[in-house]
Structure formats: C-alpha cells, structure tokens
C-alpha cells in the first residue's frame, strides 16, 4: 500500500550544529494498517510525514502509494502535494477560520481537479463525513465557534471526506487536555477501523502509540531503530533506546557469557549471572544491556524466600516506597544499583527491607549496546 524506501531529508541547523531530519528511512505498509512514527521531539518523525504528504521535498528516496510512485529521486518523479490525494490532520488542526464547518469539510470537493461535484453530492459527502465524527448538524457553525475537540473532529472529517487512500495525522491529540485526549484516542481507533483507511500517525507519546497502532516505527535522531507490533516494541526492544523510550524499564550493563537458541547467559552487576532472551544477534559480548520491566519483577522477603527453578534472582534492600494508588513503586538497591519494581499496593514488604528480586528469563531481554 504505502512504500517508503531510503527516505532522506536533512535540515542543516547552523545555530547549534545539530542536523535535524530523517536518514534512510524504509518501510512498507499493508492496506488498512495503522502505522505510528514514534520518537522524541526533533527526531525526524514529522519530517517523514511531511515528505509523504509532499509538503517537504526529500533529498533522496522513493515514496509510492498503491503502486503509484509519488516521489523518486532516481526517476525524477515528484508529484505535487495537491495531486497526491491524501488526507491530513495537522497539529493545530488548521481549520480555516473564515469558513463554516461545512465549507471547511467540503473544501477537497470544491477544489478537485478530477471532476466537478454537484451541490447535492457535496452536501451528501459533507453530511456523511460529519456523521462519522458525530458532528452532523454542525454544518453552518462558523469555524471560530468550535471547541478544541470539535475542531479536531472537523479536521478529521475534512481529511477523510474525499476518501483518500492514505490518512496522515501529525500529533493530533497533543493540543487537547488529558481527559479529552483519552476520549479522542478511542474515537480515533474506532474511526480508523470503521473506515479501514491506511493511516500514518506521528506522536511522541508512547502510550498513544501502543494503544492505537498495528505497527510502530521508533525513531531516534533521524534513524528508524525498530519497526514492529506494539508487543514487539514493548517486550522485545531492539536496543537500549527503544527499551527506555517505550515504557519504564530497568537497564543494566552486562557482559555476554554465552548464548544459544535465542537464549543467553549475561553477567550483570557484581558478577551475577542471569538468563535472558536475545531477540537480535549480539556482536560485541562486552557491550550488552539488559532490560527488565518493573512489573516483571516479583519481590519476596529474603528470609525464607527462594526463586523457583529457572527463574532469575537478585538480592537487594528496599530504599524507597511510593504509593501510586492502583500499584506501588518500590526502589530496591542491589549491588549499589537502583532497580524499580512495581507491586500490588497491598503486598506486604519485610520489616528489615531485605528482599529477593525474582523475574522470568522470558521477560529479561538482552540487547546490543551500552546503557547511556
């Protein structure tokens, strides 16, 4: 459906010598996929989206939708933005304040070069698009008299009214307050599966990405560092950056002792050996990071406690306890390194604070790279 190959667009920033943009990005999407570009601000995710829309001209690469090449540096193809037939929701929504809701939504019809639409066709299309976002009846409302959430829905209706092949969303939830954001998030998910349109979504919010996406690409300083399903990204991060950026985790520096069949023995802390899964090959045995999610660790009192066979076990002492309502965060120091553990809020802790940390090898991931 959407094919992006070797996409490169670099901005030279003369003031701080850090070149922004995206380098050599490649991915291919199946029809109907909800695809998310996830990364911290300034990583190049919005640049990638704008290149697909045609708002930026890439330095290099190929962009094709349903076999139609939109951009190709080698073949010297560059379809102008207005002929790419995509829908897009901007971060500021970009609802034109001098038009009514209906005029905003009807815009793709009224400027269409392919064919002329009759008044009835336009009115019908607008009504259907507004119905999808639950705003039917708001047609004549001036755009300046809409709340943030309503503006967002109008922007969405405008983006899908002409039934584009591709929907592009640039951080559409970031301008909403927390409660509205949750509401619109489920709304967006529902809409996308209802229309079944291939969607590229840009966000820096990992929980949004995990909740919405079929596939996620994590971008770090202009490079796509991992592409996969939300579960892949969360449970099998490809490197320390992904592990740390998506969800909270404990990252330990380690040394590879030996590996076989995707399993490995890694030495962490002061010479402790643990069992890990290795989703990717590790080239340098001395440069390994081990990621353990706080919720994957179980705490037991050291007095009388023991790990079951095949489980990893480290000893430590509780240094802080933070009550979070539904759960509790316990900080444990083991060999001088602080580890976070999430436990049930009512789980008793030993009075002397001496605990064992027990975690399954399947939830212990060894990735190549140093802990930064």
């Amino acid at each position: 459906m959407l094919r992006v190959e070797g996409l490169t667009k670099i901005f030279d920033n003369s003031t701080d010598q850090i070149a922004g943009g995206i380098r050599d990005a490649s991915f291919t999407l199946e029809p109907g996929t909800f695809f998310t570009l996830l990364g911290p601000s300034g990583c190049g995710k919005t640049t990638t989206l704008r290149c697909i829309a045609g708002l930026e001209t890439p330095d290099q690469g190929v962009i094709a939708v349903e076999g139609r090449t939109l951009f190709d540096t080698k073949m010297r193809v560059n379809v102008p933005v207005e002929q790419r037939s995509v829908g897009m929701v901007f971060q500021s929504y970009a609802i034109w304040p001098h038009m009514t809701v209906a005029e905003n939504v009807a815009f793709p019809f009224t400027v269409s070069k392919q064919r002329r639409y009759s008044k009835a066709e336009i009115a019908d299309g607008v009504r259907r698009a507004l119905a999808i976002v639950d705003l039917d009846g708001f047609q004549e409302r001036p755009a300046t008299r809409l709340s943030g959430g309503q503006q967002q829905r109008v922007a969405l209706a405008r983006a899908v009214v002409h039934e584009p092949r591709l929907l592009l969303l640039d951080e559409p939830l970031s301008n909403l307050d927390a409660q509205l954001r949750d509401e619109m998030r489920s709304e967006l998910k529902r809409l996308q599966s209802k229309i079944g349109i291939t969607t590229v979504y840009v966000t820096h919010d990992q929980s949004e990405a995990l909740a919405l996406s079929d596939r996620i690409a994590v971008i770090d300083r202009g490079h796509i560092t991992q592409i996969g399903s939300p579960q892949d990204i969360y449970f099998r991060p490809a490197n320390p950056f992904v592990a740390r950026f998506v969800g909270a985790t404990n990252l330990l520096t380690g040394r590879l002792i030996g590996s076989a069949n995707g399993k490995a023995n890694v030495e962490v802390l002061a010479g402790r050996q643990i069992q890990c899964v290795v989703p990717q090959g590790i080239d340098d045995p001395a440069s390994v990071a081990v990621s353990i999610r706080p919720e994957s660790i179980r705490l037991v009192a050291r007095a009388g406690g023991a790990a079951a066979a095949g489980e990893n076990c480290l000893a430590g002492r509780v240094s802080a306890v933070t009550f979070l309502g539904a759960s509790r965060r316990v900080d444990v120091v083991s060999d001088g390194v602080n580890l976070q553990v999430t436990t049930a809020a009512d789980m008793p802790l030993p009075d002397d604070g001496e605990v064992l940390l027990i975690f399954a090898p399947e939830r212990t991931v060894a990735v190549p790279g140093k802990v930064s």
Partner: protein
Amino acid sequence: MTATDARTGRWARLSARQQAILATLLIVILAALVLPPFLFLIQGSLTIAGPTYDSVSFGLGNFEAVIRNRHFVTTSINSLIFAAASALVALVIGWVTAWIVERTNAPLKGLAYLTAIISLGTPYILYVTAWLLFFGKAGPVNHLYRTLTGSTDVLINIYSMPGMVLVEGFLWSPLAFLLVGATLRNANPELEEAARVHGAGVWDTIRRVTMRLSLPSILALSMLVFIRAIEAFEVPALVGLPGRVSVLTTDIYSNMVARAPPDIGGASALSVLMLGLVLVLLYVYGRLSRHAERFATITGKGFRPRPFDLGRLRGVAAGLLVLNFVLLLMVPMLMLVWVSLLPFFQPVTAAAFKLISLNNYRTVLASGQMELLVNTLLVAVATATVAITLTFLGAWLAVRRGPGGWIIERLATIPLVFPGLILGIAVMQVFLRIPIPLYGTLGILIWAFIINYLPYGMRYCSSGMLQIHRELEEAAAICGASALTRLRRIVAPLLAPALVAGWLFIFLMSARALSLAILLAGPRSQTMAVAMFDLWGNGQGTELAALGLMWSMLMAMIAVVFYAMARRSAAGALGRA
C-alpha cells in the same frame, strides 16, 4: 498585631500611595499637554474676527463661511478620492511585495527590506521632490518622450490628481509592505498547507485561503493608509497646489499662509470639521482591526513555514522585487544625486555632464546648516525621550490596571485624531493665548511633537508591557520591593527592547515630520524638513538634493538600528505608524 504585620502593612500602604501619586502626576501632565490644543482650537473656530483687533465675537460664522465656500465640496471630494486611490496603490504594491517576500521562494528578497528600511529614515519631502524631478516637465521621462516623438507636449503631467495619487501611493507602499509582511508572517502556515494537501493548487490556495484570511487585516490597513492620506500634507502641498488640485489640508494651510492677516478662524473651523471626519474614520478603523484579530491564529509552536515553489515564475517575482526597488529607491536616489551635482536643473544630456561639480555640497556645508542639524536632532531626541518616559509610566499603570490607568490610556491616545497640520494650528493658538514665551522657539516644536507622538509611545510600551507576566512583578513584591522599585528593577529592564524600539521610531518620525513643524517653526527654530520645504519653494532644488541626501544617509543608518531592534522586540512593534 505583631511588628512584622505592622511593617508589611505600612509597606503595602506606602506602595499603594506611590502608585497613586505617580498616577495623579501623570494625569495632570498628560491633561495639560493634550487638552488645551483641543479647547483652543474649538475656541478659535468659534471666534469671529471683527474689523479691528479688539472687536471679536463668538458664533458659528466661521463654519458657515467654510461650508458656503464654493470650493468646499470640491476640496472634500478631492481629499476622499486622493486618499482612497493612494491607499489602493500603496496596498497593492505593498501586498504583492510582502507576499513574494514572506510566502515564496523568489530570490532577491533583501531588496524589498532595503527599500522599506531606507524609506523609514528619509523625509517624505525629499522623496516627493525626487519624483517631481523625475516625472516633471523637464524630467527624464518627459524628456525621453519628447526626444523620441519630437512632440513639445508632456507624456505625464505629474501636477495632477493622478500624479498626486501615484506619488502618495509610492510614499506609503514601503510601510504597507512592512505591515502586511508582519500579518503574513504571523499567519499559521498549516492553514495553507491544509489546502494544498486537500487538493488545492497554488493559485486556488492564494485565492481561497491566503487572501481571504488576510482580508480583514488588509481592510484595516487600507483604512489606516486612507486616514494618513487624508491627513497628508507633503504631496498635496508640493504636487497639488501647483497643479491647482486642492484638498482639505492644503486649504487649511492656505488659510494660514496665503492670506494676510491669516484667517485663523476659518482654518480652525475647517480643522474642527476635519477632526470630526478623522474621528469617524478612526472609529471604523478600530472596528476593522478588532475584526482583523479574529483570524489571527498564531500557534505557539515554532513552525517552519514552507514557501510556495513558484517554479518558472520565480524570475517574474524577482523582477517585481527589482522593479519595486528601482522605482521606490533607485530612481529617487539617483535623481537626487544627479540634481545635486548640477548648478541648475537639467535633463540628462551629454552637455549637462560637463557642468557636474560638488559645488552644491560645498554651499550646503558652508552655509551654517549645522544649526539646522542641531535643531532637528535636539527636537527629535527631546521628543522621543519625554514621550517614551511618559508612556512607559502610563503603560505600566494602564496595563497593570493601576489607579487612573484607563484615564491615562485615553489621554495618551487622544492625539491620534490630530492631523499634523491641525495640531500645529492648535498648539500655535495655545501659545498665542497663554503667557508662556515658547512661541517661535524650539520649545513649542518639542511641545507639539510630544503631544503628536504620545499615542505611538503608548502603543510600543503597552504591547511590550503585555508580554511581561505580572507574576514577575508580584514575585518582586513578595520579596518586599515597593512599586517604584519594581518599576526600576523589574519592569524597565524587561521592557528595554520595546522602549528602545519606540524611542527610535519616535526619533525617526520627528526628525522627518513636516506638516506639524511647518506652522510652528520660527526663523531661528527651523528643522531639516521645514528647511527643505523652503528650499524647494525658493527654487533651490539642487541644494535641497545635496542637503537631503546627506541627511538621509545619517537617518538611514539610524533606521537600520531601529529595524533590527523592532524585529527582535515584538511582532506588533511597527505598530500603528
């Protein structure tokens, strides 16, 4: 009550009293500056001169005479046509230039800024004379026409209504460019991008989104230029009077200088009528600009606006920028350089080249023009300093809703209704009636200039003030700083960029103002603009060119500093100029 309570209580009372004292002082000063010209102008308009000096009576006779005058209707209609047409010319040139510069990938954008910034420092009178020389009977345009056709007629008669409109439009187009540019820069580029993504081409996007979005602010701007053109004096006096096209301002001027004794009553009555007109227009402008802000959708995020790719049209756009630069800057400047090197005005011919010398520059430098320079700088510096000081304090009280803040704001913005010439007449009458011997000195000029530029100072200071979060001051108050200490230690340093920009703006405007100074300057208190006006009137165009060029160079340098400051301080820094 403990000791500390008593102390903080006393601090609070003292602090409140400091503000109250300051507010009272400001209200008294501003009222003394702003109200007398009004009252004396109205009194003057109602005073009917009798056959002898003492036999005056009061009544509406002056108004009756003005309205009965058979020229009155023609003059009023001329004023409206002149103002509307020149606003249109200025806006069209300004909008096209601004759009090319702010929204496209055309090269040579620097030329537009160069043109605009240099025009900020150059006295209008100098520009007007340059274009008169260029388009005049013996100027290069008509000379070329006669040489090519063998005709003895002229191609362009600049001394006519179309000529006035053209020159006035040229004068205002750089400012229109800067103001339109500011609104285009502040617009959210995502609004245009959304149109492109959803299928609109470049032309559709301009027509249906860019133009429509900037329409309200363009309307407000054209109203502004319209008002300024109604109040204009330079072009009507230099182009209109010789061409026998009279407008309201030149009628008032003629009442004062072309008759002996001057018909102060008639001039005042006409002035009062004009004040009424300006008042109405300003009200409309206020409505329009409030409407304009409705569409201002600036988002906080640092956008990277993507300019339109004009493709092959880039060359055309660049050509327009070059044309703008040549017409508005090169032509007048080269014309002045040419004239300044000649003993008397001549078309550009081989014979004329033999006459070239620097004699005019020698004459100008030798003839004690130092006094002019000192006078003008003195007036400009004093005006800018006093006006900014008053409005700094006023804006602080007004924006922070201190005691009497709204009265101060009203008082400081009242002078907006005065066209320069009319304020001149009004201030003159004030000092003819009250026994303060300022008449004919630089003092009366500074006095009038301060009144005239108070609204501009207020604009700069309050827009700067609005950007300073009040918590910054409250934090200082919590630490125990009194009102005046907060003003000195917190507000003044933070407001410094806006203050400097406002100071430079008022300095530049007062250094080149003609209409306000022309009736107030005595023989010993001339300013540069007034001297240039006299030189032109005396037929000393060549010396005028030499003097004007040197002066403009100095002012252009100051204008560059101003522009750099204004760009940095605030979006609205160019304000209502």
